[in-house]
């Protein structure tokens, strides 16, 4: 049994717009080790949610996976027939949505929705399902008596716990959490993240945490994958990547967020400009138009992925000069003059 639960290689996901296909994910590759929390981070529109949804193979009507592999537990789920893929769903790959309010069916009780998964997908009997539901509620810290309540009767944080309970229901190998705490206030965010972390390590589940908030990644993840304009900019162990980022984008991103741990060592500096249009992406490095360190080469050639250390890689022509980039990149005026 390999250490790697999921290995995504050269994934391409496109949206049909008119007669054209616009690639929201254009050759993304990363690994998810077993029992790890992997943060998938980037600005909105970078393709992280598309990746997350591609992993479930439930994508928008006009979206399609045009290339690459997603090897999950030895099988390429990109190539799996729909029937077999459906067997994997929720049993092996579960999902925590951004807004539990909208993703819970308002007309059924929470118990019904748990039951639906446990019985239809997990094959449990009614009695087993009830016991499991109570167990799950206890696991996420909700009083089991509230099983009979409807979604709208829960607070935002509670609903997110319900969503976690739902995701855990069938003991999946992988949970994809798409911005699970974004809609919540900071204190609740922490509680939820703590809980997620605790349950994950307890149960040895792998988690892909999709977020735009690098501080969330820093707070909870083992590894991080930074995406930019449909490609992976940098990937690596959390500590190494956050403390020693090698891609100018990661550096910029780090500057743009307060540290969750409360140890902000400088001003918050936003990255000027906006991500490029995916209709006509820049020919070279996609970050080049906003990058303070961009060279002529960066604008023309697509950068290779350079392995910096064990499991740490970055797609930057200047990754060899990472120390310099970090030093310059931590100065505020570097980003203002760009």
């Amino acid at each position: 049994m390999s250490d790697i639960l999921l290995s995504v290689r050269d994934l391409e996901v496109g949206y049909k717009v008119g007669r054209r296909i616009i690639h929201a994910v254009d050759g993304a590759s990363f690994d998810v080790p077993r029992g790890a929390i992997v943060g998938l981070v980037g600005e909105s529109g970078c393709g992280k949610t598309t990746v997350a949804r591609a992993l479930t193979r439930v994508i928008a009507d006009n979206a399609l996976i045009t290339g690459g592999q997603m090897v999950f537990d030895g099988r390429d789920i990109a190539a799996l027939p729909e029937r077999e893929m459906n067997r994997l769903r929720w049993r092996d790959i579960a999902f925590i949505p951004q807004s539990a309010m909208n993703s819970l069916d308002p007309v059924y009780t929470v118990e019904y929705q748990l039951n639906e998964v446990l019985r239809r997908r997990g094959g449990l009997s009614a009695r087993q399902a009830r016991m499991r539901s109570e167990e799950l509620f206890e696991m996420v810290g909700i009083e089991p008596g509230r099983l009979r309540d409807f979604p709208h009767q829960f607070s935002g944080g509670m609903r997110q716990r319900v969503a976690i309970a739902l995701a855990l229901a069938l003991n999946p190998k992988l949970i994809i959490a798409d911005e699970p705490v974004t809609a919540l206030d900071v204190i609740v965010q922490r509680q939820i993240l703590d809980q997620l972390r605790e349950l994950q390590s307890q149960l040895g589940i792998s988690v892909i945490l999709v977020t735009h908030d690098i501080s969330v990644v820093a707070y909870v993840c083992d590894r991080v994958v930074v995406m930019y304009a449909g490609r992976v900019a940098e990937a690596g162990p959390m500590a190494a990547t956050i403390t020693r980022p090698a891609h100018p984008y990661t550096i910029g991103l780090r500057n743009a967020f307060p540290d969750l741990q409360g140890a902000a060592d400088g001003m918050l500096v936003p990255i000027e400009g906006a991500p490029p249009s995916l209709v006509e992406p820049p020919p070279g490095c996609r970050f080049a138009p906003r990058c303070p360190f961009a060279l002529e080469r960066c604008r023309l050639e697509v950068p290779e992925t350079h392995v910096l250390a064990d499991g740490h890689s970055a797609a930057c022509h200047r990754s060899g000069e990472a120390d310099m980039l970090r030093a310059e990149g931590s100065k505020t005026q570097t980003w203002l003059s760009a």
Partner: protein
Amino acid sequence: MFQLKAAVGRILQLGLVLWAVVTILFLMFRLMPGNPMAAYIDPTFTEEQQLALMAQFGLDKPLWEQYFIYLANLVQGELGQSFRYREPVAERILALLPNTLILTFTSLIIAYVFGVLAGAYLAWRRGSAVEQAAIPVVLTTRAMPEFWLGMVLLAIFSFWLGWFPAGGTRSAGTDHGNLLGLYTSADFLSHLALPALTLAIYSQGLPLLLMRSNMLDVMKEDFVTMARIKGLSNWTVVVRHAARNALLPVMTSFAIAVGYQLQGNVVVESVFSWPGLGRELVNAVSASDYPLAQGAFLMIAIVVILMNLIADLLYALLDPRVTHV
């Protein structure tokens, strides 16, 4: 506390509407030019006979007094006496109401079952050729005059094919015991078929279009996507989640449709010789039988008002977001 206040408000409002409708009715029938009983006073009557007749129906008193007597009688469920049939209006109306209700409900249930299923199907097959072709057809069924449709169906299925009888609720001279025996008999059902079908064809458009557009909205909701991610079967996703949610407003529209249908019955009952309230209203109006027309009108209005109320309640009942606060 808030709910109680809302409920009291709703009931007060209902009372106000009822009172207003009753008053409008009274004035409408009483302020008509000419003697209200003109059609029933035989010219050979002497003056005393005419006055006696007027007195019998309380028409000799001043208008305001008639109004209060009318209100007082209504409160006691007394609808007056029919000029034409010389019998209590309430009795006639109660005799005819079941026929009208069963026709209304049968046709609406057919219409709603079909409309909901077809609407869900069309939403599911959005953009397909079937959908493209079906929508204008559905719109066209709403554009047909009901009596025209009824006459055409009558010509085809009764006169031409001879599959169904041409009118009434039962074969001549058959006795099915009580109403339940009648309504469950094959004889009755074959008589019910054509009028119910006519009304159903006319009514299915509303639930169908409503269901379809709701489904399209609901299908975009996150919880439907989630249901797919959960690996639930297509059927479960479409039926248990999308359709169930889309059904909510459709169900409330059912109550409102009952009210509307009751009005539409007026025409279809005449086509199919159906002994119902609508036909009675038309007869009473043509025969200037004001108490009866007034009673039939009031009965229809009460059902309409009640159904509007039920629609509100039903919405609350079916949507847990309203019930479980």
